[in-house]
């Protein structure tokens, strides 16, 4: 689910960028915030950092004695994307394997549907491997799939989430153009 959240971060403006007063300082601060926002990518509480939308407050800066850099507490609003256990999401198939299917879902690149959690779908190997059920419904590369989130895992070293998904349930599975 995409969320609109308010975050409080400390932004460090380096001493070299402090010449300008007023607007120039604010510009340096915003640029630094945007850079930090992209670099941090995600956290376990709010998920992936998609886009900042509004700067709410800039607090009083504190000078760092050793470097002369100034640290500003900043409050801003942004959009994030966080997967929740039990949530129904849509994804796009990246890879089909005997053991199951990998999907991507927005910024999340590792959504795994294990073959045993795919209900009546069975693996058919070949040049273009597919999962198919007896109603001729096909899951192959680039197909859009609606799945349920069984579990989420935050991987601190890569700053990303991994999702374990399932097709066991009504109204889950591949979706075709025109339907979402």
């Amino acid at each position, binding site marked *: 689910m995409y*969320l609109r959240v308010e975050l409080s971060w400390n932004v460090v403006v380096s001493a070299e960028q402090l010449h300008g007063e007023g607007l120039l300082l604010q510009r340096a601060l915003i640029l630094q915030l945007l850079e930090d926002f992209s670099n941090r990518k995600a956290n376990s509480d709010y998920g992936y950092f*998609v886009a900042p939308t509004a700067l709410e407050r800039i607090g009083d800066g504190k000078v760092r004695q050793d470097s002369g850099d100034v640290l500003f507490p900043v409050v801003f609003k942004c959009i994030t994307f966080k997967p929740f256990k039990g949530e129904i999401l849509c994804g796009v198939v990246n890879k089909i394997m005997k053991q199951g299917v990998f999907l991507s879902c927005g910024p999340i690149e590792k959504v795994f549907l294990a073959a045993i959690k795919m209900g009546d779908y069975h693996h058919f190997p070949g040049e273009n491997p597919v999962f198919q059920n007896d109603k001729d419904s096909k899951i192959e590369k680039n197909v859009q799939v609606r799945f349920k989130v069984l579990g989420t895992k935050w991987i601190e070293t890569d700053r990303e989430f991994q999702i374990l998904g399932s097709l066991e349930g009504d109204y889950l599975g591949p979706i075709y153009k025109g339907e979402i």
Partner: protein
Amino acid sequence: MSEQEEENAAELKIGEEFLKAKCLMNCEVALILDRKFDQLQAMSSDPMSQVSQVFEKSQQYVKRFSRYKNADAVRQVREILSRYQLAEFELCVLGNLCPETADEAKAMVPSITTKERGCTDENIEKMLNDLSLIKKFE
């Protein structure tokens, strides 16, 4: 949420802070990200280099999975869904997945059938019907 194990969006157990956080539908995110992208385009000749991977992937995703494209339609969808006693999270799941029948809606958002919501099949049908009208007139 103290115990990760307890999280279950199907029962709307997703932690107090997230029930209060504003959830956004894919179509709303698409409008916001497109506007951001246009701003960047106005400032830079190569806007793609200015956006993060997370931004780019999100933008592709919300474009692909949005039923409603224009700003008026998107506003109406939220307006219609807001008439029912839905939590933010439930509202956005319905807006994203656009179920066609009451049974599908209940399968996608099982929490709407709890007592506090009081969504009867009749209510849900009416809601889905109103939503499908927006699509027709978009």
